[in-house]
């Protein structure tokens, strides 16, 4: 019998029949978010997904001699916004460094990053989890943000094993990244997934990154280790190549289990990098990592320190295009997801878990609010139609809210009929099914067509009942 791992809600993993001490899994995350900008971090090449190879590459990106980095203002603003949203201290003076290693998709032989003094430090991110898969019991957790740094993305390598060569596309080389480092405050795949999901929502709300994992705009590496309570942290492994939030949870839980099994069998954990194989559902050692890397960090000699200002320190006679004011950015931050949820709960009297679902689907909160505006039905009742009926239809047909054949006004019209008791709720569901076909009919038209109106006329009802009884007698 092996120890039960990963899915345990608490911080410890109880041991099985072996009678060994419980295990405490420890999970930290390094997240790279591609900055949403028109051009790259240090050059004027365009940032775009899926363009012809090497078409979005300047001489600087290709590391041709005689070229110099020029910092993109928008990327700095994106990093400041993100730092503020994550409750960080923004360093008014931050520095750029070179991190050296050789790889075909890194033409310069080094990456410009911020190793010594990054742009933001010491923040926190709050996220929520359901206990025991019941949406009604949610618990809030916090993970500390160690730092956020600006750095360059590398190009892309396509491995052609048949011809024993690598094809290199530098379109992505030099795109701005924000690396968000989360302290090892998480204990399992579910916590990590929830934290990353919340970060994703925050980034999308700020607009600093579109954070679409499928397009590589959000990449997550997990650092995983286990130890016994009261003992020092165990050796950690780094897990890479995780392409979705679902796989993130799986990869972490697998790695926790693997480490526990290894240690309980008397083995040791190597401080190595492992890749997640989504087909097999397991982590495997990555072959190309040759021992411990020495990146020979050095200050980037071509870039002076990055100085940011606030209302107090604003210089008088400087071109304002050259000045970034942290306070100005702070004042203009949009409502973060947590604030939006609170407002939804307060304004409409819906449950907290409802607000989570509303924000979890792109456009669903707006849809809900539009329906509420146009119907007499109370928001507390409307929410059921949105979260159960509408959302399940969308999921069944793999549609986004924007692609919904039923618009807010159509749904509002339908709910009005129901509210005015012109139809029953069973009939309403029937009408919704018909509306879903998107044939352009209004709810009222469908009701008339299918004769779904609730009858009030006593005589008419008597006639129908009598007809039914008569039919029965004839059989």
């Amino acid at each position, binding site marked *: 019998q092996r120890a039960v791992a990963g899915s345990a809600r608490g911080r410890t993993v109880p041991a099985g029949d072996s009678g060994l001490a419980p295990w405490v899994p420890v999970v930290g995350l390094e997240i790279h978010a591609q900055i949403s*900008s*028109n*051009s790259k971090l240090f*050059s*004027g*090449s*365009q940032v775009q997904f899926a363009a*012809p*190879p*090497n*078409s*979005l*590459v*300047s*001489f*600087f*990106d*290709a590391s*041709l001699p005689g070229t110099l980095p*020029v*910092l*993109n*203002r*928008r*990327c*700095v603003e994106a990093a400041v916004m993100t730092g503020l949203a994550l409750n960080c201290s923004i360093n008014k003076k931050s*520095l750029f460094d070179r991190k*050296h290693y*050789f*790889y*075909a998709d890194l033409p310069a032989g080094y990456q410009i990053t911020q190793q010594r003094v990054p742009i933001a430090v010491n923040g926190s991110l709050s996220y929520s989890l359901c206990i025991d898969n019941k949406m009604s019991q949610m618990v809030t957790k916090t993970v500390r943000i160690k730092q956020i740094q600006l750095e360059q993305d590398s190009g892309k*390598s*396509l*491995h*052609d*094993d048949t011809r*024993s*060569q*690598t*094809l*290199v*596309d*530098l379109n992505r080389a030099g795109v701005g990244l924000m690396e968000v480092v989360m302290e090892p405050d998480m204990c399992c795949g579910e916590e990590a997934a929830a934290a990353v999901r919340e970060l994703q929502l925050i980034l999308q709300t700020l607009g600093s990154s579109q954070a679409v994992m499928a397009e590589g705009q959000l990449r997550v590496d997990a650092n995983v280790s286990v130890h016994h309570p009261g003992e020092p942290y165990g050796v950690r492994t780094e897990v890479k190549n995780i392409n979705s939030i679902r796989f993130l949870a799986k990869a972490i839980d697998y790695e926790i289990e693997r480490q526990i099994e290894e240690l309980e069998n008397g083995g040791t954990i190597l401080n190595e990098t492992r890749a997640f194989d989504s087909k097999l559902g397991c982590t495997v050692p990555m072959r*190309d990592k*040759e021992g411990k890397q*020495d990146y*020979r960090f050095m*200050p980037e*000699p*071509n*870039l*002076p*320190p*990055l*100085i940011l200002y606030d209302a107090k320190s604003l210089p008088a006679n400087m071109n304002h*295009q*050259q000045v*970034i004011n942290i306070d100005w950015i702070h004042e203009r931050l949009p409502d973060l997801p947590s604030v939006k949820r609170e407002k939804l709960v307060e304004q409409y009297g819906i449950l907290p878990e409802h607000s989570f679902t509303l924000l979890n689907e792109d456009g669903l909160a707006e849809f809900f609010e539009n329906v509420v505006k146009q119907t007499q039905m109370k928001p507390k009742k409307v929410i059921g139609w949105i979260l159960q009926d509408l959302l399940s239809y969308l999921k069944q047909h793999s549609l986004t809210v924007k692609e919904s054949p039923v618009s807010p006004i159509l749904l509002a019209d339908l709910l009005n009929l129901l509210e005015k008791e012109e139809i029953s709720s069973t009939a309403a569901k029937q009408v919704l099914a018909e509306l879903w076909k998107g044939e352009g009919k209004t709810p009222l038209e469908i009701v008339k067509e299918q004769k779904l109106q609730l009858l009030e006329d006593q005589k008419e009802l008597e006639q129908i009942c009598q007809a039914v009884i008569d039919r029965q007698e004839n059989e």
Partner: protein
Amino acid sequence: QKVSVEVLEHLEHLALVDFRDAEGVERLQKAIQFADQLHEVNTDGVEPMDSVLEDRCLYLREDDVTEGNCTKELLENAKEKVEEYFVAPPGNIPLPKLGERETFLQGS
């Protein structure tokens, strides 16, 4: 002070240089000795300067697309290409160990 074989191999691996023979290693050792003279300066309580640009203003560029679209020009430099991709070996090719290299054995 001699530079050990392990350090030499480590440096060659990191920087992809080839110290080639005993003369090359001697030159390296002399270079290190020369730089070590810096230790003679008392820097107690002095904040290190890591850039002569430390008082300069870091120029911020507007987020406009002004470069790129020069695939043909860039690929002119490529020894090998496949459909507008640069071609590289499948992975980093490690240098053979120092002891195995002919050039090194010649000079020692």
